[in-house]
């Protein structure tokens, strides 16, 4: 009995000695959901490991899904047992807030977002003036063009107006060689709608104003007509523009293989273009969106991404998650005054949105491909963030694709898009 007591005492001592260490190894386990590619996920894991080294009571694991599955995954796991942290597209925020899926940021974090980010980007991370996320990247659209194809076609400079845009598209098109002047995307909602919205903005129009859709405006009709003209003349071949769930596919293949002269695409595609083009990446130029007949200057469409915390996570998890995110997006986690998040984003050619990150990466952001985007940031118009925004985007995508494939006319597209948008936004608001 005595020996048993000794044994029990020894076990108790051992347990007492080990418990703090065991608990310290991972008192809180966080999961971070993203749609990034494996190389980028590895960088995020490295940053998470660096945080865990300083905060041994927090373990962070990263989970990646294709972009097409990101929202579904967030929603599927949102009511419990889901990921603690998720990277989201700003358009999704109002509905995630409405459904009580994302937690409001603590006061200190909200204050930091308000002071360290540009007002427009900070506003996109808020609903009814309550901050729900920490912004990280900002994306905008520009015209990407193949310099080699331009040279062969005898075009000296990228088009500045729609008139030049159409003429250049005609020169770059050669059905016998299988080339098209301007590549239109299909089968990917944002990939279809954002270039359209950029052209519309550069034609003096907008998708939504004061909560009301503006798709039957004269400016919108002209934008639909531009698409119609491109397709009818064979300058855009819709069948060459299909994208897959990973936002690659024939659309990307045709551009990197020199079969598409121009596309309108976002800055974050730099890494995909580099992967596809290799040594020929320098043959890709970036220029402002051509200005339409009703527009006065080039405007891009911008949108932002942010990280949010699951409202159904425990208090301890939420606290640890905000602390980690504040560090990840803060000025002390990266190199030369940049955040660790900015380092990760820059590896993909993505523009960081925190003001101190933009300053820290000033020289890197002036490289030829990105410079064309950075220069347009001041004039960019934010994609409208409204309740029902995702459905609105998918509906407009359908209409644009029907126009691209000749199923409806430009006039019908404008009328249908307006009617659908009015119905969607009204229903979402009620």
């Amino acid at each position, binding site marked *: 009995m005595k020996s048993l007591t000794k044994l029990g005492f020894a076990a108790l001592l051992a347990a007492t000695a080990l418990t703090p260490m065991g608990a310290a190894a991972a008192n809180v386990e966080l999961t971070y959901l993203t749609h990034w590619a494996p190389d980028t996920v590895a960088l995020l894991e490295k940053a998470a490991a660096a945080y865990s080294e300083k905060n041994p009571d927090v373990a962070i694991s990263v989970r990646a899904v294709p972009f097409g599955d990101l929202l579904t995954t967030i*929603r599927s796991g949102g009511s419990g047992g889901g990921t603690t942290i998720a990277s989201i597209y700003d358009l999704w925020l109002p509905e995630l807030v409405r459904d009580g899926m994302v937690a409001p940021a603590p006061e200190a974090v909200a204050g930091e977002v308000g002071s360290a980010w540009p007002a427009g980007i900070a506003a996109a991370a808020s609903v009814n003036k309550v901050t729900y996320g920490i912004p990280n990247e900002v994306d905008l659209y520009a015209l990407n063009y193949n310099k080699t194809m331009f040279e062969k076609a005898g075009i000296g400079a990228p088009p500045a107006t729609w008139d030049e845009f159409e003429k250049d598209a005609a020169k770059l098109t050669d059905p016998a060689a299988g080339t098209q002047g301007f590549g239109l995307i299909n*089968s990917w909602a944002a990939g279809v709608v954002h270039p359209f919205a950029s052209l519309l903005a550069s034609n003096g129009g907008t998708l939504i104003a004061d909560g009301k859709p503006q798709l039957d405006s004269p400016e919108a009709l002209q934008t639909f007509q531009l698409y119609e003209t491109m397709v009818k003349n064979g300058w855009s071949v819709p069948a060459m*523009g299909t994208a*897959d769930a990973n936002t690659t596919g024939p659309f990307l293949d045709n551009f990197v293989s020199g079969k598409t002269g121009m596309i309108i695409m976002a800055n974050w595609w730099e890494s995909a273009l580099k992967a596809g083009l290799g040594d020929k990446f320098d043959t890709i130029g970036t220029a402002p969106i051509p200005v339409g007949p009703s527009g006065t200057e080039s405007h891009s469409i911008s949108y932002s991404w942010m990280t949010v915390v699951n409202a159904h996570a425990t208090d301890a998890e939420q606290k640890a998650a905000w602390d980690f995110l504040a560090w990840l997006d803060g000025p002390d986690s990266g190199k030369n005054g940049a955040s660790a998040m900015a380092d990760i984003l820059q590896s993909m050619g993505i523009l960081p949105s925190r003001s101190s990150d933009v300053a820290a990466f000033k020289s890197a952001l002036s490289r030829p491909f990105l410079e064309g985007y950075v220069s347009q940031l001041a004039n960019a118009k934010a994609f409208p963030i409204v309740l029902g925004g995702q459905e609105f985007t998918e509906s407009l995508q359908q209409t644009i694709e029907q126009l691209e494939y000749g*199923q409806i006319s430009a006039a019908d597209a404008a009328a249908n898009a307006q009617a659908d948008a009015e*119905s969607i936004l009204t229903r979402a608001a009620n």
Partner: protein
Amino acid sequence: MTRAQKKPVWMMLTPAVGLIGVFVVVPMLLTIWLSFQHWSTQTGFETAKFIGLRNFEDLFSRISVGRDFRGAYFNTAVYTGISVVVILPLSVLLGLLVYQRRAPGGTFLRTVLFSTYMVPMIAVALVWSKLYSPTEGPINQILSWVGISPLTWLSAPDTALISIVILNIWQQIGYFTVLAVAGLTQIPQTLYEAARVDGANPLEEFFGVTLPLLRRTLLFSAVIAVINAVQVFEPVVLITQGGPAGSTNVLTYFIRRVGIERAQGGLGSAMAVMLMLSLIVVIVAIFAFARERKEDA
């Protein structure tokens, strides 16, 4: 039967009936109930608000969700119809080929055919999306060698759905061939011998003996093929995302988009109810057709 004998029967049935009730009947009833509610899938059932037939009215209205639903319904019907119409005769034909005892390599052929059914859809999707690539895909390159112009495959609304159907047939045909072979093994050889004695040629043997005696197998195959086809989801979500221009938007994918991505649980449930009702009607029609043919025979 005495009272004492009845009690154990009731007790033995309870676990099975209880499990079916909990895992089959309750979810179905819940889906039907939700189809009459306005409900976000991200909130508890207590937040559901009764709205009568509004969700069903929306599905048949002119608004975009109604048009998309009807488009998805049509696409699913086309996908199912073509899949079943091609798979059933082809499986019998291939079954006859690989069942021939005198033909060498029958077992090997059966294994090869069945292997496509075992390949995970993610692998199939990756490979076929590249095979179908309009400019760089091997299929179009092969077609060009024989002077056929490149086809648009997944890249145009006219051809995208049929491309997914071809992929489905390729993957499923092995399974249905095995079913056909299983049916063929049940036909007594004596019937063929009797037919030959009566002077029947191979074609008459097929229509007079094989096909009538394969009826049960074909009925089973038809029901399974319809159910499999109606539930098509993976190739759409992995390859086309419902596009281009909604041409591959099928019901399961659209229900997921509406019910989960947009969190419109009531509307998604109404679509699921419509799908369930349609499936019941089709399956009942197949059985009625089979019964009628049996009575005619």
